[in-house]
């Protein structure tokens, strides 16, 4: 999963220490997002007596707790990493390793193709029953392709 979440250019342990600290800040934000996902349906239910569907309420709580738990665990793992110079060096080399970066890029390319294919099939099936979902899925697919085209043009000028 390094290709997606953990790629970092750091030639020394000091540089990598900054990367790890930035990631720890990101985990705090992720934990807050998780807490918000838990709090939103609870507050709606308690103060405004908003009628939330039973299943949806559980999904919000489950998603929020998962995000919160993972963020706390990752934050702690990175905190421990900062206290061990050898482990820090090992992780720095792994996150800079060109072969691992290439493996991450290829995996991401494969996953993107799979996602486009699955979205296309889902859009066709959903389109028969629900127009709004059909349009949302179509927009999502367009966003993905437009993001690719935009990024491609950007890197074409940069490299």
């Amino acid at each position, binding site marked *: 999963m390094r290709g997606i979440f953990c790629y970092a250019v750091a030639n020394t342990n000091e540089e990598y220490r900054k990367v790890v600290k930035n990631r720890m800040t990101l985990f705090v934000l992720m934990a807050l997002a998780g807490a918000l996902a838990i709090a939103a349906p609870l507050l709606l239910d308690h103060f405004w007596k908003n009628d939330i569907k039973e299943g949806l309420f559980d999904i919000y709580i489950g998603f929020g707790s998962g995000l919160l738990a993972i963020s706390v665990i990752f934050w702690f793992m990175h905190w421990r990493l900062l206290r061990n110079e050898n482990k820090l060096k090992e992780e720095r*080399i*792994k996150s800079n390793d060109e072969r691992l970066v290439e493996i991450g890029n290829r995996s991401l390319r494969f996953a993107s193709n799979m996602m486009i294919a699955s979205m296309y099939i889902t859009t066709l099936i959903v389109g028969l029953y629900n127009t709004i979902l059909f349009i949302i899925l179509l927009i999502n697919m367009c966003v993905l392709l437009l993001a690719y085209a935009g990024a491609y043009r950007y890197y074409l000028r940069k490299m």
Partner: protein
Amino acid sequence: MQTRIQELRKAKKVTQSELADAVGVTRQTIISLEAGKYNASLILAHKLAQFFEVPIEEIFIFDKEEENL
């Protein structure tokens, strides 16, 4: 691409881990390079050449037929 990394490494009496540490990659990358399963970038090729104190073309064996040239 075939390489002479293993041969040069053994001649210099260094382990895969030591070589990996010296050029800043993982041991698995050295294993893949030695097996010819992964092609090194220009930067890594330079680092390896500096480590073994030989020109790049003495480490990496460029096969014209393999590259369709």
